[in-house]
């Protein structure tokens, strides 16, 4: 047994690409998640950052077994989720829940808040009696900041922020220990985003939730997370304490990501130089050899296309990155005002 609550070992999720009408054969594989190692202690909030197509959502779903990984292992509280099958997995799902990006799509339009929440509760708590059910649902609604007077309302009668609250309540209805939030605020307005982030941070603290917060927005992630993992093309390229990763990025990709985050300050915005990466992220079907980032990397040397860099830290700390020039590059974002 290890000290970690959640352990992910060499997780790979590949999707076969098939062609052919009569005889389907594999013509390639999309390596959405390609060898991820992560561990998280109970109650810790991990931010998972990356651009679209980097595999961060697939990683989240693979951890929760919504997509079954191709290889590797996910251990939650000493139990292997990857080895669970059928009914055992279904019953174990109470321990790990997910919050989705689009609160307009993640709620069944034909179910009231009461229906949705009580369905979730009854699935894993058959003993719950009719009389106990309603007060429990009301309590849960209050907990996520929704008035119980909306018990019988349907999802379309709520605003985006309120719907996200319902989705959070539904995930919490089964008392999970691990929560994966996949871009939970990117579909919401700025002023509503802050409300939801606060709510998640507060609930995580109260319920001792282990939270994986997936987002493309570094500034959002930085605020809520204890640690940040940066993903690029199916791999984690940098991992460390949130403040460290943000203010002292080691990996060239993280540097670019941090430098691209706009700040609402006209002077510093105009003065600073962004690291503008050429081109778009390559496809995960034919990832470049060696370091997946080397074709876009401003610091790339010949060796970068040869070897896949190992995860390493500068000083033996928990702030690690996979870059062969780790020790040559200055930490931090260059040229910032």
């Amino acid at each position, binding site marked *: 047994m290890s000290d970690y609550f959640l352990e992910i070992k060499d997780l790979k999720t590949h999707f076969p690409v098939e062609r052919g009408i009569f005889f389907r054969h594999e013509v390639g594989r999309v390596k959405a998640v390609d060898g991820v190692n992560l561990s998280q202690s109970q109650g810790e909030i991990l931010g998972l950052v990356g651009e679209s197509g980097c595999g961060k959502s697939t990683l989240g779903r693979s951890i929760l077994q919504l997509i079954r990984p191709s290889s590797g292992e996910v251990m939650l509280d000493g139990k292997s989720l990857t080895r669970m099958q059928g009914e055992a997995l279904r019953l174990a*799902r*109470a321990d790990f829940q997910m919050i989705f*990006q689009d609160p307009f*799509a993640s709620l069944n339009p034909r179910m009231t808040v009461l229906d949705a929440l009580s369905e979730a509760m009854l699935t894993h708590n058959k003993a719950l009696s009719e009389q106990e059910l309603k007060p429990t649902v009301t309590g849960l609604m209050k*907990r996520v900041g929704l*008035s*119980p007077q909306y018990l019988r309302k349907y999802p379309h009668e709520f605003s985006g922020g309120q719907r996200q609250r319902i989705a959070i309540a539904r995930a919490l209805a089964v008392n999970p220990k691990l929560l994966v939030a996949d871009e939970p605020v990117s579909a919401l307005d700025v002023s509503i985003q802050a409300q939801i982030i606060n709510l998640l941070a507060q609930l995580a603290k109260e319920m001792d939730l282990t939270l994986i917060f997936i987002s493309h927005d570094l500034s959002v992630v930085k605020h809520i997370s204890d640690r940040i993992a940066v993903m690029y093309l199916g791999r984690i390229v940098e991992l460390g304490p949130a403040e460290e990763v943000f203010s002292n990025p080691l990996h060239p990709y993280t540097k670019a990501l941090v430098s691209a985050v706009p700040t609402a300050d006209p002077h510093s915005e105009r003065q600073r130089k962004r690291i503008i990466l050429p081109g778009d992220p390559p496809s995960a079907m034919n990832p470049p050899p060696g370091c997946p980032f080397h074709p876009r990397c401003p610091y790339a040397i010949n060796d970068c296309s040869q070897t896949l860099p190992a995860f390493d830290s500068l000083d033996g700390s928990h702030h690690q990155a996979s870059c062969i020039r780790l020790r040559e590059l200055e930490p931090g974002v260059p040229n910032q005002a």
Partner: protein
Amino acid sequence: MAEALERQPPITSPVDDHVEPGSSLWRDAWLRLRKNRMAIVGLYILIFLTTVSVIGPWLSPYTYQGQNLDLGASPPSAAHWLGTDTLGRDLLTRIFYGGRVSLAVGICATLVSLTIGVLYGTISGYVGGKTDMVMMRIVDILWSLPFIIFVILLMVLFGRNFLLLFVAIGAVEWLTMARIIRGQVLSLKNQEFIEAAIALGLRKQRIIAKHVIPNVLGPIIVYTTLTIPMVMLLEAFLSFLGLGVQPPMSSWGSLIKNGAQSMEEYPWLLVFPGLVLAATLFALNFLGDGLRDALDVRSSKD
């Protein structure tokens, strides 16, 4: 918590016993349908025709097979409101009885196609993969069989049976239903709320019953209202070919067939059954169109 709650805005005073009623999408759809005049007229016509067909025969002094050879074919009169046919049978009464048959065929055959089609389509779409492929190829093969030959084969094998007519028609119509439902389920399956239901650990049966089917009910209802007239036309067509209901029983299709044979001498024998069938088909189509508009989720968001 209390502090956070206070900042939660839209909510004035969380009073537990005051629960606001919600407005389901069904209710919204009904409110929209009510504003569609053509659909409502269609609905009334259907209700009227069904009621009359059901209770009409009891009120009528004539029976559908009671012949009056002395009278023969006579035009509409006070005794026979819609006239009589060549055998002197009261046309109105025969239309009532025909309505029973035609509507029963329409509804039963549609129910048959609905049950098979929805189950088949939902399973095929939801399970997906190889199962889906095999199930859909079976549909393709059945689809390619010529319908008339299929029915004639059934008739030859099992004799001219009224029940068989439902089954035969229903067994053909479910193919389209299954395809439509499968398409809907496929697009629904990728919705996040289905994924959320899986993540919650719900059983497959419950996900299908509670999350998938209620969300394809819209298209199912619409397609049903459009299937009924199709089925009624098929019945009329089969009766026209002489493969449908057998004399002296009548259906709207067989009445039209008989009327057509003598339409030059006794036009009322064609005109009245034709009018009734046409009215029913129009009404169903208008209702179907209205339902489609009313159930369209896009229009509920405007």
